């Protein structure tokens, strides 16, 4: 490892921008971005499933609050949501005396909350669409077998809706990765934060941002590849049969 570091140091000695120090900024930024996006997607996904089911509920008191939530979070920019949750929360009287402040004080948690609420809203609508488009025949068949509505939901509708939602959800994951670039406005040193630091320090917009663009591109293609693989596996039964 040491030999590798010396080698890297020698390689980098030639240029003034990509030193070990700036590369370590990019490295830390990459870690932060991946953590932030991954956590918000996982929590958002878990929250979105019950919300999507509730969104199609017959009861107005379940249906409308969820509709209002997705409407607001899909209708406003993520940047504004982040500002409200990070800087706005300071103006809530007495919040600094509560335990909430301990978690809201650092920028990571407010950003995570903003990202999670945002992606959960989009994911809810994606799943709701998939649930709604379940073909009538499948449901009727399930009922004919004597399944209760709950059983139908659990065994038939949800699994097939998951599969149908996959391509749209893959896009949402990529959008979320790209949207996370705003995290640096609340002082988080994510990938974009690292690039802005290098840009401001060396006045080198091309070097700083092209480098970070390449990293984002790699991440995006990794996600794309992963979803391609999932689709191929889970939607295999829908592929045309080759004789």
């Amino acid at each position, binding site marked *: 490892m040491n030999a590798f570091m010396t080698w890297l140091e020698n390689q980098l000695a030639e240029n003034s921008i990509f030193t070990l120090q700036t590369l370590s900024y990019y490295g830390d930024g990459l870690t932060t971005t991946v953590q932030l996006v991954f956590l918000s997607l996982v929590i958002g996904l878990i929250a979105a499933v019950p919300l999507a089911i509730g969104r199609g509920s017959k009861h107005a008191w379940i249906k409308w609050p969820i509709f209002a939530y997705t409407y607001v979070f899909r209708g406003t920019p993520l940047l504004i949501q982040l500002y409200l949750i990070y800087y706005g929360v300071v103006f809530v009287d007495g919040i*600094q005396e509560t335990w909430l402040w301990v978690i809201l004080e650092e920028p990571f948690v407010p950003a995570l909350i903003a990202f999670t609420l945002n992606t959960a809203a989009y994911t809810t609508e994606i799943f709701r669409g998939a649930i709604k488009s379940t073909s009538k025949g499948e449901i009727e068949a399930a009922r004919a077998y004597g399944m209760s509505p709950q059983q139908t939901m659990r065994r038939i509708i949800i699994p097939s809706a998951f599969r149908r939602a996959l391509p749209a959800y893959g896009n949402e994951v990529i959008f979320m990765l790209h949207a996370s670039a705003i995290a*640096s406005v609340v002082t988080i040193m994510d990938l974009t934060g690292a690039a*802005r630091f290098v840009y401001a320090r060396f006045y080198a917009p091309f070097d700083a941002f092209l480098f970070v663009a390449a990293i984002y591109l790699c991440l995006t293609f990794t996600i794309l590849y992963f979803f391609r693989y999932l689709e191929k596996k889970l939607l295999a039964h829908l592929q045309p049969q080759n004789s």
Partner: protein
Amino acid sequence: MKKLLSVSLLGLAVAASAAQAQEDQVRIGVDVPYEPMEYRTPDGELTGFDIDLGNALCERIGVECEWVVQGWDGIIPGLMARKYDAIMSSMTINDDRREQVLFSEPYITPPSAWFAPEGTDLDTTNEESLAGMTIGVQRGTLQDNYVTDMYGDVADINRYSTADDMVLDMESKRLDILFLDYPVGKSTLLDSEEGNYVVVGEMLTEPKEYFGDGFGIAFRQRDEALAEQFNEALAEVREDGTYDEIYSRYFGGQE
């Protein structure tokens, strides 16, 4: 034919006068708000030390100043991209920037200072005492460079796009200490309603590799003639007392 000729002549005349107007105008990039250097009055008008001094200089040269508001982290690239012809935005002259832009003579040399809530026991001359502290700086400023190099390994550094965000986070106690230009800190922290802030330790103007030689007006390297005009005007306003009058308007009597 005749009509065509006269129309094109008219066109030429318009173009010529437009070019003329261009030369009578200097566009100056500025990043607001940094009270008292450059900020907006409640009714939205640009004002501040830089603005008043810049206008006085333009008047002396006989051109019209147009102020272009531009965020700090893109202010030098904006100059290169010809979005404006000069930058007058509390920019410290240093060697890094000299490679990019041409500076006027320094027009003011304010120190940088550490600001913290009253009663703090931080000792900024001692790197140890800042270990684990959260330091606020503005991204891409010389203060950012200084703090990053001096304390980057021991302290958390939060970098902000605007001084307002930074002060807000100071008030909400997300930050332990700030490092910024003294005049900016004075007006935003010391003179604010909260008022419970103090300057910690010595104000800094050394070492020169970070703190440079005071604030200068930046131009593109090739615009030497323009820079020279501004230098002459600067010497004149210092001579005739206009400078002192503007200075005391924003900083009180003493320098």
